[in-house]
């Protein structure tokens, strides 16, 4: 085992009472003294600060990098405007998902954020496939997310240029006097920002944000309950190399032109599925009662036969009940379909539910 890495906010996490756990090779705070539920509510009601510096930040430089990127993803990037960001996935030749990522157009190059657990593979993959392009991991910048309905109020004070940004805008602006890359996006379902900051200024910016009356720190525990309520996939749980974007109910990541032209790994599989359908789909599931159904819980039909598995599940502090996601046969994917979950040997009634479980509140202007 290699040594656990620390982000540039490690000391701050300790100061704030963060309970540190190993996550994707890093020591990260799973929660602070407030606890997961309080941190979750902080984000839904005011604003929460998350350290997401473990994620990979990468630039792609060269002649028309959007065109090169399109050979690896099903999204449309040729027309992505400068200063805009878009979500996509790396697909493999079987139509499976290698990772999900955010890509921003920074004018003469692309700025990419990938998952911590996948970043080494992703970077090696991009370097191998994007011949003639310069793929560079940015190792000297931290990434801080500020999320919640009052994030904009806090940001307006210390980063006045942020107020004119809308959901999925991406700009180089000053935050607390420091040059940062700021995206109006996140992983909680709330309005908010992600700030890429030079690591030597990360603690200063984090502290400045925490000084704002709206803001309190939140850890990975709340990040997970927030994204689950928002119906957002976690790579490695809800999507991986064994799931296609069609099965994962991520059809929307496939651009209109890409549906016609293909030209991305696994396009033959994915476009065929798009036309002919799939045998299973990712759905939201709400168990009856209070027992959470965690990942790998078996999903049964009403006759007690195993039909699938929960991929993410837990308790949703805002919705106030257990929530889950998992894969079920397509004919059982309609909202309201009754099924059962096998929790510790007991069959718990459950229903397919619409996602997001909690309304997304992005700021679209």
């Amino acid at each position, binding site marked *: 085992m290699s040594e656990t890495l620390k982000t540039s906010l490690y000391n701050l996490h300790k100061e704030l009472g963060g309970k540190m756990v190993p996550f994707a090779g890093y020591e990260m705070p*799973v*929660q602070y003294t407030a*606890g*997961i*539920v*309080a941190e*979750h509510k902080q984000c839904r009601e005011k604003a929460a600060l998350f350290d997401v510096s473990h994620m990979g930040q990468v630039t792609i430089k060269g002649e028309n990098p959007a065109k090169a990127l399109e050979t690896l993803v099903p999204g449309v990037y040729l027309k992505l405007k400068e200063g805009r960001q878009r979500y996509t996935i790396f697909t493999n030749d079987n139509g499976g998902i290698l990772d999900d990522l955010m890509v921003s157009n920074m004018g003469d190059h692309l700025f990419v954020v990938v998952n911590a657990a996948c970043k080494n593979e992703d970077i090696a993959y991009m370097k191998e496939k994007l011949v003639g392009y310069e793929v560079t991991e940015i190792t000297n910048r931290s990434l801080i997310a500020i999320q919640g309905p009052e994030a904009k109020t806090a940001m307006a004070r210390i980063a006045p240029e942020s107020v004119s940004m809308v959901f999925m805008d991406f700009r180089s602006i000053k935050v607390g006097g420091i040059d940062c890359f700021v995206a109006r996006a996140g992983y909680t379902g709330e309005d908010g920002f992600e700030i890429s900051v030079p690591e030597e200024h990360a603690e200063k910016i984090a502290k400045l944000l925490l000084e704002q009356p709206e803001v309190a720190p939140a850890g990975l*525990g709340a990040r997970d*309950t927030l994204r689950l309520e928002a119906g957002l996939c976690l790579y490695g749980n809800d999507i991986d190399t064994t799931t296609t974007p069609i099965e994962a109910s991520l059809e929307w990541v496939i651009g209109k032109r890409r549906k016609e032209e293909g030209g991305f790994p696994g396009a033959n599989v994915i476009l065929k599925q798009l036309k002919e359908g799939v045998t299973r789909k990712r759905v939201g599931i709400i168990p009856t009662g*209070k*027992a*959470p159904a*965690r990942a790998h819980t078996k999903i049964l039909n009403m006759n007690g036969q195993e039909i699938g598995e929960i991929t993410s599940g*837990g*308790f949703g*502090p805002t919705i106030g009940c*257990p929530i889950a996601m998992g894969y079920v046969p397509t004919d059982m994917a309609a909202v309201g379909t009754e099924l059962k979950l096998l929790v*510790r040997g007991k069959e718990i009634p459950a229903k397919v539910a619409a996602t997001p479980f909690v309304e997304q509140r992005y700021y679209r202007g």
Partner: protein
Amino acid sequence: MIKFTEAHEWIEVENGVGKIGITDFAQGQLGDIVFVELPEVDDEKSKGDEIAVVESVKAASEIYSPVSGEVIEINESLDDNPAMLNSSPEADGWIFKIKLSDESELENLMDKDAYAKYAKENG
């Protein structure tokens, strides 16, 4: 008499009946508790058997019976208010009562001071 286990449970024994719950230290480690799966009255359990499950937002944690015996009462108010395990783990948040079949099993458990030291060392 109150005794404690290495699994951070407490047992208060009176007239051959043990009232069992998790310690304040344990609830702090678990975090926000959202569900308690209670045993059933009349369940016969041996020392070390899984007898209840406490689910926090993070994860499920099994509770093992610190003694052998028959479950005679469960704290049903935890069904509606599992957070009582966070707010009052060593009083209102008791989980079940068991009629001890072998009181000598208590001898190997820790007393209050020994447990305080143990929790500190394992915190």
